[in-house]
């Protein structure tokens, strides 16, 4: 049990700066998912917390105690690796019990601890096997067993599910969440998969280019993205970005001008005459005859069963919309679009920042 603080962590490899002043505060027992494209520095951040890599500047604090001078073993953190990193020459039981080598416990106690963890993860029948004889999902469970047995202050997960197939990944997602409920431990979970971030996190940290773009609950980063990067990275299909200019009471869009609803006006106040980007999720784009005067051509239709995704071509941009599954559309059709501006996010086209800063702040304290 511990609170984890990162204070202005910077890391450079030679002339390349992979982490730039990253600060983050994770309260005890919180499940934080760090998400970002590959190369954004998220794995390096995790390795610095683990002590496998030294920060060029900044400090890692566990329960307000700086740990940068401590070896990974002394930090009392546990880590689950992408490729599991099980010891191939040891049995499952030995792998799980390995972290207890130093613990002052009697042999019978250790065996009992291993059995307890194996029961929790439902891998008791596998205890005498070696990792080579296990499936991917089983290996993942053993890796988690090795992590929880030591009762660590912090759990670190480094893309633990990316080697699993889609069905197993979904199952393991909920199992890891269930595990966190059963053994509530401060957790830092790194992934490039935004679905994992959205479904598992108490809070999501979106990283890009070595910096934190936004920290917030999954709902916050989805519906109130701080930057155009966050807006584009979170959500599948990607958010629609419609170039616009605010003039008086109306928004000038490509090929049409829309009146601004009264509820939206305060958000745009003071930005008249500026180039903006209107971020609109696919579910906030209605395909309907006539529409708002915005007309596009249907390019592709992707039925997923529960809903149908429609990709549209407009001379100025490419758009996507989420519709009911029983749509009568077909490629090549010209359709009218209605924009639910009340649900849109508005960004400054120059800085890429949301005109209305989201409620959460970047140092990462919990918002009440």
């Amino acid at each position, binding site marked *: 049990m511990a609170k984890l603080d990162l204070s202005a962590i910077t890391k450079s490899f030679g002339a390349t700066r992979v982490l730039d002043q990253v600060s983050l505060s994770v309260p005890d027992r919180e499940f934080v998912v760090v998400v970002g494209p590959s190369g954004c520095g998220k794995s390096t951040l995790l*390795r610095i917390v*683990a*002590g*496998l890599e030294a920060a060029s500047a900044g400090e890692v604090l566990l329960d307000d105690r700086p740990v940068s001078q401590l*070896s*990974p*073993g*002394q930090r009392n*953190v*546990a*880590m689950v*690796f992408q*490729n599991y*990193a*099980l*010891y*191939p*020459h040891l049995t499952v039981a030995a792998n799980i019990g*390995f*972290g207890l*080598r*130093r613990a002052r416990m009697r042999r019978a106690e250790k065996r009992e601890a291993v059995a307890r963890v194996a029961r929790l993860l439902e891998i008791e029948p596998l205890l005498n096997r070696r990792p080579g004889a296990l499936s991917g999902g089983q290996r993942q469970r053993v890796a988690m067993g*090795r992590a929880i047995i030591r009762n660590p202050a912090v759990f670190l997960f480094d893309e633990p599910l990316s080697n699993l197939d889609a069905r197993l990944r979904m199952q393991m997602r909920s199992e890891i969440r269930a595990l966190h409920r059963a053994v509530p431990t401060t957790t830092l979970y790194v992934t490039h998969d935004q679905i994992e971030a959205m479904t598992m996190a108490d809070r999501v940290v979106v990283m890009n280019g070595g910096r934190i773009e936004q920290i917030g609950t999954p709902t916050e980063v989805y519906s109130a993205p701080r930057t155009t990067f966050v807006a584009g990275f979170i959500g599948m299909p990607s958010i629609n970005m419609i170039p616009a200019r605010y003039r008086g009471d109306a928004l000038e869009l490509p090929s049409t001008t829309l009146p601004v609803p009264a509820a939206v006006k305060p958000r745009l106040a003071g930005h008249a005459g500026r180039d903006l980007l209107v971020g609109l999720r696919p579910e906030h784009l209605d395909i309907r005859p006539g529409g708002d005067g915005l007309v596009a051509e249907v390019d592709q239709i992707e039925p997923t069963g529960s809903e149908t995704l429609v990709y549209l071509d407009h001379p100025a941009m490419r758009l996507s919309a989420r519709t009911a599954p029983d749509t009568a559309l077909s490629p090549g059709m010209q359709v009218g679009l209605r924009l639910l501006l009340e649900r849109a996010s508005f960004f400054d086209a120059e800085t890429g920042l949301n005109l209305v800063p989201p409620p959460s702040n970047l140092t990462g304290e919990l918002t009440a």
Partner: protein
Amino acid sequence: MVRSRAERLADLAVYAAMLLLAAAFLLPVLWLASLAVRTQAEVFLGAARFIPEAPTLDNFARVLRDGGFQTYIWNTIKLSSLGAAGAVALAAPAAYALSRMRFRGKGAVMLGILSVQMVSGLVVLIPLYRFMDRLGLLESHFGTTLLYIAAGIPVTVWLLKIAFDTVPQTLDDAAAIDGLSRFETFAMITLPLALPGLVSAFILNLILNWSQFLIPFIMLTADETWPISVAIFRFAGSTSAATTQLLAAACLLAILPALAIFIVLQRWILAALMAGAVKQ
């Protein structure tokens, strides 16, 4: 697979070349075998009769019963295996450092180690002799073993580095998080997982040491300390043709252990030599 005429001709040429090469190495051995099964009388016929009229295994029996031969073989086993074990034990930490640690000049160190291998033993023979003399290590199996180890280390470092490279780095990370020190990680994780590589490096050293001649030749002058290679050379230089058939039998018997080890374990040795050649 259907093969063209050109391809089959090329195969034929390759086999012919390999046969020629094999013959170059095998003919002396066959000649040795021919001599070893002759009676003393037939030895004088020389090359006139390759397959003797009255072949005999008597020569082998006499050599094997000879107390001196047994001592020489025992000396060879002792020097070769201690030398091989020493080389593997001392090369392993160096190879681990080269495999796992980032430091300036690593490439230069690797090349430097390899370049030692390129220096012929003959070049350093005299300074080496004087050096060992000063240390008072001449005439001892201890000193000789040290030189065997030194001779084996460079190639062993390379072999073991390649073996350690195949053990994933994340296991080191996992071990560090499990609280293991560098040395514990090396001893408890890397070494056991690189066991096949260690064994093949040991065997390769064993075979190289078995045929080692120069080092024991300069180090050891007392008859009872010689390994078989030196003993055979000394006898060949001192005996008349009257014992040629016995010498031939001794030579063949001396080759056998190394040959047997190689045939039985060639797959391991090949695996060690080929490891890292391609990315898995």
